[in-house]
């Protein structure tokens, strides 16, 4: 399967998961025990995090912008998701450069993943960018720092649940190559 088709399919799957299932979590009564602020996991930036290494920054920015706009039209928040994803797309290369031992051009035809990064660096990479995305998104959405405790709680709860789903995704879709050796 070519890289393009693979990433396009991944985009469709992650978007469908986000829109049809994860966005609906808050509609269930058990999602909010005892007045806990409504949290909502946004997993779809994972698509940006898993794009191949050799995508240039301007490409990442445009893909990020389009991803954000798609999400915006589903969630009726014109521009807020796009604003957060563009920031994630812009900083992705810098974070990867800081975490990877070799230069990024030395990983031809590869995508960031558990296999070539290891669990710990990948989790640092994804949790940092997801936390950034959630912070930007929820700050713009609420647009006031009056009850900052609520804002922080919402950001942290949402990031934690997002990371839970991302780890589940990784466990499901990472091929176990050296399972028997």
């Amino acid at each position, binding site marked *: 399967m070519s890289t393009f088709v693979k990433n396009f399919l991944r985009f469709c799957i992650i978007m469908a998961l986000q829109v049809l299932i994860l966005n609906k979590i808050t509609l269930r009564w058990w999602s909010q025990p005892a007045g806990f602020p409504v949290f909502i996991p946004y997993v779809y930036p994972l698509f940006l995090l898993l794009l191949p290494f050799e995508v240039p920054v301007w490409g990442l920015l445009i893909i990020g912008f389009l991803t954000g706009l798609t999400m915006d039209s589903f969630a009726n928040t014109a521009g807020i998701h796009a604003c957060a994803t*563009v920031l994630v797309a812009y900083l992705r290369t810098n974070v990867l450069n800081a975490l990877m031992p070799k230069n990024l051009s030395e990983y031809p035809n590869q995508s960031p993943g558990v296999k070539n990064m290891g669990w710990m660096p990948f989790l640092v990479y994804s949790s940092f960018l997801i936390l950034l995305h959630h912070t930007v998104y929820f700050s713009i959405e609420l647009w006031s720092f009056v009850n900052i405790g609520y804002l922080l709680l919402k950001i942290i709860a949402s990031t934690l649940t997002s990371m839970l789903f991302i780890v589940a995704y990784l466990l499901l879709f990472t091929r176990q190559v050296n399972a028997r050796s």
Partner: protein
Amino acid sequence: MRNFILFIRRFFNLILFLGLEIVCIVLIARTNNMQGNDIMSSANTVVGLMYQKQNDVVYYFGLRRMNDSLINENAFLRQRLAKYNMYDTLKDSAVHQIVQQKDSTHVIKYADYLYRTAKVVNNSVSAANNYVTINRGSADGIGKGMAVISGTGVVGKVEHVSAHFASVLSVLSVKQKVSAKIKDGTTGYVEWEGNRPDVLLMKDIPQQVKVKKGDSIYTTSYSFFPQDVLIGTVYEIALIKKNSLLLLRLRPSTNFRNLQYVYVVENKMLGERQQLEDSVKAKK
């Protein structure tokens, strides 16, 4: 010139990044002053269709609950209909509701409301401004600014319309206040503080107003909603020390988590009223 091109090439990524962010900020600013663009909303045909397909699947799981609510609503409506037996409300789908006038003129006035049913295909409660997508659009006569109510209470106001879908800004929104009144006629605004979908606030009620826990709060005739639609019931009364005014916390009568069917209410007099009010404003 050469330096300029070199500068652009050197900072191309940064310039593109800033450009895209500016586009986003413009988009956000445009939606925040209530005049959003229809393409970037869930009233958009593609998004609407996707939500419709999903709803076709999920629909069956809520049938039992919906039947119960419909039976309750029927009972409530029969009860009210008994009062209006002398009027022929079945002539057409337009409902001639009497606007109660407590003045001495005893002129009975009619406000013409047209109720249209719509199915909810998408719903949210977690954002700061929550939207409900319904499967009726301009082809079915839905227009911007119409009120949306459910069988049990208020829902919101139509904000974006496409041919077959519309998205409704619900009462659970920090940018929309609803004009409301207590049983004794004191009016105020009901608003949402942006976090819990089962708490609404009514601020700035004078201390001498007699409110009890369990009192119902209704819509007034000032807003786009029809008069006397239930908003919620008071469950907590707090006194704000700073300005010695009361703060009422309400439980909304609509369960926003499991909305299934709603009514879009068209007020046929609203256009005339707004024209008059705008002309008064223009003179000032």
